[in-house]
Each structure stands twice: as structure tokens, then as C-alpha cells.
């Protein structure tokens, strides 16, 4: 009977959305120790659109991007498609360097390894070069090429967008 109960618990644990590791609001709350500032919006104006398109490899799907900023730190919740589905990623940029990157929602059927710390920790401390690439190459994961690519793009995007805010000074 106990075994059956454990099995049922195991099967019913799917109430959590597939691959939702942290809700975006909870991530922002964590970043600002429970008192996040009011969200701001950065408009992807014509002057930013070209570089954003170059970083993503396609036109941005949003006119503006929401972010939270305090002192020299900004936090972003961004999405990019890996192979078929969008991967939702939380990113924190401080002093123009990646402070934290976390996969919040993973919807793809392959490439799940990118959500783990052993992969995301190599982004910490990276900045943006003048040609909008990361200051160090990211070691990929075989079979997860497209997910790795999506996270790399989003980290470059967050660094670039951070530079466009008043918090990058």
C-alpha cells in the first residue's frame, strides 16, 4: 500500500508545469531579496533594433522589454526558442557583467542539460565585447546545441540591454 502511495505521489507530481523550475516573479523577488523595485520597460526603438536583431539572429518579437533595476544591477526575464519551444531565462547583470543566469521554464524535449548549474555557472562574470560577443566562449553540450545557443544569445542580449539603461553607469 505504501509503495502504491509513493507511486501515485510520483505520478501526480506532474501538477507542476513541465519544466517550470521557478516562476519569473519568484526569481525577481529572490534577486532583490524580497523587495523588487517597480518594473521598468525598455523600448526596442529603431536605434536598438539593429543590434538586438543581430544578437538574436532574428527580429525581436516584442516592442519593449520589461526589467527591474537598482544601483548598478538589472534583472531580466527573457525568452528565446531553442529548437521548437521558447526557453524562459532569468538573467541578472551587475556592473555590465553577468551576475546570474537561470533557466526558469524549459519546454523543449531535448537539451534539458542547460538548466543545470554545471552549465550556467560558466556565464558568471562574462561581459560583452565591442562586437557584442561574450568575453569567453561557452563550452557546449552535445545534443543540446540549440538550447546552448539560445542561452548564449539571451546572455548577450541582457548585457546589451543593460548598457541601454540608467543602471549601467
Amino acid at each position: 500500500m505504501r509503495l502504491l502511495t509513493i507511486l501515485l505521489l510520483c505520478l501526480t507530481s506532474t501538477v507542476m508545469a513541465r519544466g517550470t523550475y521557478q516562476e519569473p516573479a519568484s526569481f525577481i523577488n529572490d534577486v532583490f531579496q524580497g523587495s523588487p523595485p517597480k518594473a521598468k520597460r525598455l523600448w526596442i526603438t529603431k536605434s536598438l533594433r539593429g543590434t538586438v536583431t543581430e544578437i538574436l539572429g532574428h527580429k525581436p518579437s516584442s516592442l519593449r522589454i520589461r526589467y527591474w533595476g537598482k544601483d548598478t544591477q538589472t534583472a531580466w526575464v527573457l525568452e528565446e526558442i531553442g529548437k521548437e519551444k521558447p526557453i524562459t531565462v532569468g538573467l541578472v547583470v551587475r556592473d555590465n557583467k553577468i551576475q546570474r543566469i537561470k533557466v526558469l521554464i524549459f519546454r523543449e524535449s531535448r537539451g534539458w542539460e542547460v538548466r543545470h548549474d554545471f552549465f550556467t555557472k560558466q556565464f558568471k562574470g562574462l561581459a560583452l565585447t565591442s562586437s557584442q560577443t561574450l568575453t569567453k566562449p561557452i563550452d557546449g553540450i552535445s545534443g543540446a546545441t540549440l538550447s546552448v545557443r539560445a542561452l548564449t544569445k539571451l546572455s548577450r542580449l541582457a548585457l546589451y540591454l543593460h548598457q541601454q539603461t540608467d543602471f549601467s553607469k
Partner: protein
Amino acid sequence: MKYRTLLRHSALIAALTATGLSHAAAPAPTLEELWQVIQKQQKQIEQLKKKTQQTDAKVEATGEILEQRTADAGKASKTTIGGYGELHYNNLETGAGDDIKEIDLHRFVLYFGHEFNERTRFVSEFEIEHGGVQADGSTLDGEVEVEQAYVEFDINDQLSAKGGVFLVPAGITNETHEPPTFYGVERNPIENIIIPSTWVTGGAAIKANFANGISADFAVHSGLEVPTTGGSAFRIRSGRQKISNAVANDLAYTARVKYTGIPGLELAGTVNHQTDISQQSGDGADEATLLTAHAIWNRGPFTARALYAHWDIDGSAIKAADGDKQDGYFVEGSYKLRSDFGIFARYNDVDGVRVQDEFKQIDVGFNWWPNEDVVVKVDYMDRDNDNTSDRDVDGFNVGIGYQF
């Protein structure tokens, strides 16, 4: 009182500045008139402020609606389409003096996927090889086949199960073979002769992903039906059944463990057990076990790959034909000189059952990615047959491939 005087003087100066010298000759306005002008301007400023706020609110509302529509469109697209393909040009010469000069649309593949809900999805891969087939199956040297068609269920965050037609989890390229992901126009010969990629099977499988980068797969599926007579007797690749009324007298089992816990590193091992590799008892080809292991190590621009695969097959007939042990390995090093250009060299040693399937081969060449999803490949190959120099092959290959 002082403030009022100062204000009047300021207003006077402002009015003089505003009216300019052209009005210098006109009679000076009274202080009362100037006061009215200032009040009127103040009112206009207030109106403009209000208008700006209204415009901001409208822009904000427009942005929200557009974003909502974009998000809704994303949610609505539960069916996805993708694909890949590759065209090859082979310019080869055999030891017997024959030339092989061919242009071949080797693969044209379309994916169709559908997400029934967050936990249940359909994955498929529809492939036309070598340009397709004629209606009667003649003339064109190709195939039309379903390479994947399965439904996958997430049991929980770590565990998923699938049923249908899927790829056997063995080796490097059987599951991940989009042209931009590997070097060389043609796939390596070990994952052709020993691991018969693309190796498709029908059955059920379960997959577990663990937080430390370890994943495990277990599958029960249709087995190989290796021929025991003719020119392809005991050839593993000829045993693929294509899931077309596939004989299922004797099922097969596959287990794989993979470790990707360090960025850039992949280690994996697979065991595939065929309860009867010919699907017929008493024909001298019985139980068989395939062991494969591979490693991939990527550090910055450098990548090393190595794979070993070995078949151990029971049966008197297959032993007499010297096919009871079939194995091979390759080692490959590649270096990206730029983010869009890389060079590689690969050494392959394969020991199959047919005369032409026993050789050593060196491949060298480059990949150029004009776009991250498009690749142009050029390589030179030199195959040295273990049995006869007539089967030696050397020459170059050129290919273009894509994925989307």
C-alpha cells in the same frame, strides 16, 4: 509686495524678448495684458502636459495589446514544423580503377511535432533519401520512410515515456544527425556499418534525467532481421526492418547511460541485446549484443570525439562466415579557426562482415557555416581495404546541408 514687483519686471522682460525688435515700435503692452499672456501660456503648458500623459497611456496600451497578441500567437502554435537536408557531390576513385562521380540529394527531411498538452507531445520525422522513389519503386535509387513517429508523455519532471517509432539511443549520430552538427560530408563509417544509423525501431522507451547530468534510457523494441544468405549475409545494416510489417518474433532491448555533467563533455555507453538477430531460430544466427561507448570533449574551439562499437553474435553459421565479431572505432579532432569555419581530421577502423566493410579510412576537411543553421562541407577521404586493394577508395566529397 517685492515679489509682485519682481514678477512684473520679469514678465516685462519676457514679453519684450518674445515680441522681438520687430514689435519695438508698437505701443508697449500694459502689465495687465502681459499677465494675461502668461496665464494663457501656463494653461497651454498644462494642456500639453495632459496630452503627453494621454499619449503615453495610449502607447502603453498599444504595446500591451501587441505583446498579448504575440504571446497568444505563441501559445496557439502547438504544431511545429522543422527539417534538415543535405546534397552531396562525391568524386571518388576505387582501387579497381572505377570512378564514382555522383550528385545526390542524400536526405530531405521534414519534422512535424504537436503538443497535445504540457505533458504529452507527438514527434515525427519524415524522410526522403537519395531523391525519392518512382511510383513503382524503380529507377530512382531512393527511399521514402518515416524515421520517427512517437508520442511522448512526461511522467514527472525527471521521467518520460514514449511509444511509437523512434531512434535507437546508440552512438553519436543516430539521434543527432542534422548536417550542421558534424564534420564530414558523409557520416563516419562505424555509425553506418556497425551501428546501422539511421537505426529506426518501433516499441516503447523510458527516459530518466537526473540533476547531476546523468540520463538513462531503456527501450523494448523491434529487433534486427539480419539476412543469413546472399551477398549481404550477416550484414548488420541489411537487418534494419523500417517498421514495415516488421517481424517481431524476437524483440530487442536497449539501455543507455549518458553523462553530460561537465560543460563540453559527453560520455555515453549503450547495450543493445537482440534475442535473435535474424528473427528465425535454427538458422545459425541467434542472440546478439552490441556494446557502444563514446566520448565528446569540447573546449573552446577544440573538439575531440571518439567512438567504439562491438557486436558479439552467437550462431554457428555466422561464426563460420567470420561475422560473429563485428566492430569498429573512430577518433576525430576538430578545430574552429573562426566561429564559422572549422577543420577536422578523423581516423576510422572498421571490421564488418563483407569484404568491402573491412578497412581503415582517413578523412580530413573543413566545414564552413555561412549561417549557424547552414553548412558547406569539403573533405578528402582515403580508404585502405584490409582484404583487397581493388576495394580501396580515395577522392573528395563536397556537401551542403541545413536545418531549421
